[in-house]
């Protein structure tokens, strides 16, 4: 046994040495925080050690009305995104696939992929300018049809739609790439057979293309469901203000404010853990359901 170990070591030590930096990154940056999360069960004291208080912070959290507002907002925004954002890239891919000129398709793709590579700070900046009540493009257009200027960023219900639309603006183009890849993989002879049967454009889309990408749609849908509790911190935090908070404050922004603005470390960590554990359950469920149904998982 020890002989085998020595042989293994002689063969493999260079590989472990090369992996060491990466492994250390993972252990420090991902596993220490898991250990630090025990703070959720402690009273944090300025002079250590902290005192173990069990589930006290979770009780405080679950009896706080703000927590339920924030949870509801998270679920509502996620649901809105699944319903209104998820289908768009599929439609975009179907449209792109109909374009006969390769040059035109490339041109369209290059333009609509761009927002995916912009930060949410930039996108929020662009949308705040677009939606400006005084001279934003949106209010100019609606004003042309006689509507009064609307301030979309100060009405939380409207801001939810801003979240949905800015998400479409950012990801509809890029996400269509995955579906396009699936469409390219469809057996061409199916189209030829459909043409022989006299199928028109819509019949070919309906009977050949869509069935061909259903597995991809299913996989991505299930994986999206797995992310249901993260309504995207990076996005929301840039659209959040004191006026629209009631409708768009989500779990992550709540944790951020509670912990890093008001210094309620333990309570914030408890809220974060609540999300982490539930989120883990959902991602794992999504992974195994997806693996079973479509053969593809999260990893």
């Amino acid at each position, binding site marked *: 046994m020890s002989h085998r170990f020595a042989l293994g070591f002689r063969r493999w030590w260079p590989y472990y040495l090369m992996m060491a930096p990466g492994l250390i990154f993972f252990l420090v940056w991902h596993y220490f925080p898991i250990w630090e999360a025990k703070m959720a069960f402690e009273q944090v004291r300025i002079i250590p050690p902290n005192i173990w208080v069990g589930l006290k912070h979770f009780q405080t959290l679950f009896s706080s009305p703000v927590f339920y507002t924030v949870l509801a907002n998270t679920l509502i925004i996620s649901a809105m995104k699944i319903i209104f954002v998820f289908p768009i890239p599929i439609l975009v891919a179907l449209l792109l696939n109909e374009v006969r000129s390769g040059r035109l398709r490339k041109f369209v793709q290059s333009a609509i992929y761009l927002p995916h590579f912009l930060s949410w700070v930039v996108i929020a900046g662009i949308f705040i300018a677009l939606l400006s009540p005084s001279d934003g493009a949106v209010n100019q257009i609606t004003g042309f049809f006689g509507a009064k200027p609307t301030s979309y960023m100060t009405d939380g219900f409207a801001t939810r739609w801003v979240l949905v639309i800015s998400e479409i603006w950012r990801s509809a183009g890029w996400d269509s790439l995955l579906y396009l890849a699936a469409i390219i993989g469809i057996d061409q002879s199916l189209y030829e057979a459909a043409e022989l049967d006299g199928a028109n454009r819509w019949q070919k889309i309906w009977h050949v293309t869509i069935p061909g990408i259903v597995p991809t749609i299913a996989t991505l849908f299930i994986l999206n469901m797995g992310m249901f509790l993260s309504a995207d911190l990076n996005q929301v*935090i840039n659209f959040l203000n004191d006026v629209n908070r009631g409708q768009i404050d989500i779990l992550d922004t709540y944790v951020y404010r509670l912990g890093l603005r008001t210094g309620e470390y333990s309570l914030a960590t408890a809220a974060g853990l609540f999300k*982490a554990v539930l989120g883990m359950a959902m991602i*794992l469920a999504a992974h195994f359901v997806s693996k079973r149904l479509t053969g593809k998982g999260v990893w």
Partner: protein
Amino acid sequence: MAATTHPAAAEAPVRGTAIRRTPLERLEYAIIISTLLLMVVLTVQPILNLVAMSLSDPSRVAGMSGLTIIPEGFSLDVWMLLLQHPLVQSGILNSILITGAGTLIGVMGTALMAWGLSRPHLPGRRLIFVLVLVTIVFEPGIIPDYFLMKRMGLLDTYWSVILYKAVNAWYLIILVRFFEEIPEELLEAAELDGANAFQIFFQVVLPLARPALATIALFYLVFHWNEFFRAMIYLNDQGKWPLQVVLRQFVVEGDKLAIVGANNAANNIGVAQINLKALKAGMIIMTILPILAIYPLILKFFTKGTMSGALKG
């Protein structure tokens, strides 16, 4: 059967030459193309509008429409003032430093680790994979992360953002898959020539992996350039802020003083006289510029990387 009246029945024999389209088909095609072109306009116009504002004569920006893409007059005043601003100057340097160091460390760490993980007989391979996958599934949140930084004394240092999750689990998996496909014969040949494990990695594997490494490098580059949240919470010192945080402070938080400066604002001199809208527009475009500069590369490598990563998923 209705086959005799079916339009395809007449066309079928000349399938190869059936390019002649009915007016209805042409209309459909026109609608499809117009929809896509409309998407292009909706994507690009808001950005071009900001470009136009930042290049306009500052005195004429106030009345400018959000719909136009043509500058009102022409002036570089906005850009000159922004580039002279200390927060913008330090922001540019900080962003370059963080992105450069983060990308370099990220690519090296990821490649070295992926190489080990791609060897099918490496002892402990499964365990390490599980360790990596756990981090994708379970994230304890920002507060424990913050305390980790504090405990290591990294708060308010560049390292806090450069090293934060320096090796990305997804990029690691993409590289592992790429390395797994390197033909075994090549490696054996090198081994027979007397190359050791390090020489094989640096002289055989890395040159072969150049496209994959370029893809990963671009992933890290875009990630680090666009990162703002960690920088915002870890860096208190304004002088260390990357461009994204400066932009956020100014455009999203609407902190006019951050960009105009209290002194200028009070005496209405310098930057304070320029229309705020124009300054914001210029700031947004400045932050996008590096992404636009490498966009052709992004299109080339990201598309492939994402497709192969997704298909093998």
